[in-house]
């Protein structure tokens, strides 16, 4: 694998929520991650694992109750956490863009879609409203919307779910970002639509030399669509590896358990296993150092007190954070 300067570097990112009833929940704990230019990375975890919060942290769109307690985020070398609000506004959309889960609610319901794309273009350097409008139509055509010039005048509610997600992609791609984050972008869509949307993202990423961060709970989807998969459990990154390798040679007990719980074409009921227990309450005072501790069948006292080191494989591609890896 060619050694490229990473596009995005996240180091030891820790993030906490202030809880309404007092106290704090440690939502992300020392998370480190790189994304290379043009790489497709999947961040996989169960609901509540902190994967969506991570995406919002990258964009600095966290709400007021969230606080980044440690770590750094750099995109193309630029320190995101210390960038001015104005600079952040420039970076959003232009350097890193995101597609959210629910296209039906993520589009401004009362603006014509062409105009929404034009708004993004105008926010990112386009000066002429006419040109913006023309490029908006082009964008729509690019994401595969038939009769784009006419459809540009449609309102979101006049479009089907798949079309809306296409429009969302067009919006995200409008300012040619370097990194596209797809946050559960296909959850809730039919499998056929999901395949179509993923094809489109893949296609566009390739055409625009864009890196993608696919945030999902669906390991199968991640494995099919991404170069590399990072697995997150209760705010801790437990393992990251090239997709095929992760599926076949997972080293973290959690990754393994996740794999045996995921039904796929080859599954039978007999070889499906649920993961025992639940992810720990991140607001608890006595969180074990390894948050998978309570659910793990390989746990020792060590796991409770000492945070596992991230150990990399010889080529650095397979990283696992476990005292007792498989």
């Amino acid at each position, binding site marked *: 694998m060619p050694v490229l300067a990473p596009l995005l570097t996240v180091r030891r990112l820790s993030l906490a929520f202030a809880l309404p009833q007092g106290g704090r929940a440690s939502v992300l704990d020392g998370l480190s991650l790189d994304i290379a230019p043009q790489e497709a990375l999947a961040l996989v975890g169960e609901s509540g694992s902190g994967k969506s919060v991570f995406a919002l942290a990258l964009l600095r769109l966290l709400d007021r109750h969230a606080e980044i307690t440690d770590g750094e985020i750099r995109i193309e070398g630029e320190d995101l956490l210390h960038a001015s609000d104005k600079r952040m506004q420039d970076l959003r959309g232009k350097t890193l863009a995101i597609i959210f889960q629910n296209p039906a609610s993520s589009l401004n319901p009362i603006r014509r879609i062409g105009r929404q794309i034009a708004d993004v273009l105008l926010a990112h350097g386009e000066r002429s409203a006419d040109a913006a409008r023309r490029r908006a139509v082009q964008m729509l055509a690019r994401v595969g919307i038939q009769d784009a010039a006419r459809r540009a005048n449609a309102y979101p509610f006049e479009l089907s779910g798949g079309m809306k997600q296409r429009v969302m992609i067009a919006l995200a791609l409008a300012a040619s970002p370097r990194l596209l984050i797809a946050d559960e972008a296909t959850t809730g869509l039919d499998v*056929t639509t999901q395949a179509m949307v993923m094809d489109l993202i893949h296609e566009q990423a390739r055409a625009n030399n864009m890196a993608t961060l696919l945030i999902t709970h669906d390991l*199968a989807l991640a*494995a099919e669509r991404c170069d590399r998969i990072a697995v997150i459990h209760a705010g801790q990154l437990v393992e990251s590896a090239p997709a095929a390798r992760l599926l076949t040679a*997972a080293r973290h007990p959690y990754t*393994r358990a996740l794999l045996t*719980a995921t*039904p796929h074409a080859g599954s039978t009921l007999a070889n499906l296993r649920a993961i025992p227990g639940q992810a720990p309450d991140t607001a608890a005072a006595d969180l074990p150092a390894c948050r998978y501790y309570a659910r793990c069948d390989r746990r020792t006292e060590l796991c409770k007190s000492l945070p596992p080191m991230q150990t990399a*494989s010889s080529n650095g591609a397979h990283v696992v954070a476990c005292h007792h890896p498989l």
Partner: protein
Amino acid sequence: MTVLFQARGLRKAFGNGEHRRYAVDGVDITVAEGEALALAGESGSGKSTIGLIMARLLDHDEGEILFDGQEIGKCSARRAAQQPWRAQIQMVFQDAGGAFDPRLSISDSVALPLRRLSHSRGNALTHAVEDALDRAGLAGHLFRRKPHELSGGQLARAGIARAIALRPRLLILDEPTAALDVSVQAGILHLLNELRRDLNMAMVFVSHDLNVLRVLCSRVMVMEHGNIVEEGPVGRVFASPAHPFTTRLLAALPKWPRSEGLPHQLPGSALIIHSQ
């Protein structure tokens, strides 16, 4: 094979005037005693509507419905609550959280059908409730909790407990695991399979997730635009789909890379995922 449930020529339209559209457009369904039937389709295909009609929670426009040989389709859904077969046909909903009265404890919710339909009282009732919840694998300390105090997986189990409390002969499940994490889903699937086996319940499992249907059911019906486009044993349909729509559905599923051919680079880390 004994036929338990049979529906013929089911039709159901929604909307008025020019917006009138058939969500179910001439569907025949037969469910055998103790069978696990899968109903697959995309959103808007009419599969959930069929589920509601089968559970007699929704009136159909046309067609006849026989349960245990008895015509039950003539009785309107509004009056279904008083019918003797009510206890025999139960349903589990997709949104387990929304399916529980937020004010009641889990055990009270589970007790409701027992009190209303089997008229259990006192110890017998408590016993039946706890038995159902135990069967569904819910830990005893959770029985007295309110729905919002439970996790999604626990709620799903509670929902199943309520549905099986009456020992129904037909259980309709409308995407019961769609909102759950895979880590929990597997457990629920095992549970359902055990229950079907132990209680000899027929199940109709409505879902868009073909991988889930495949592991649980023996027979599958694929729906598109209110019609059944393909029907057959799970293995056959998935291995060699006959209808182009089924083909498309299967093709859209994420590919799971085969385990063969990838060397394990780190010693001692080998993990055989598919230990056939």
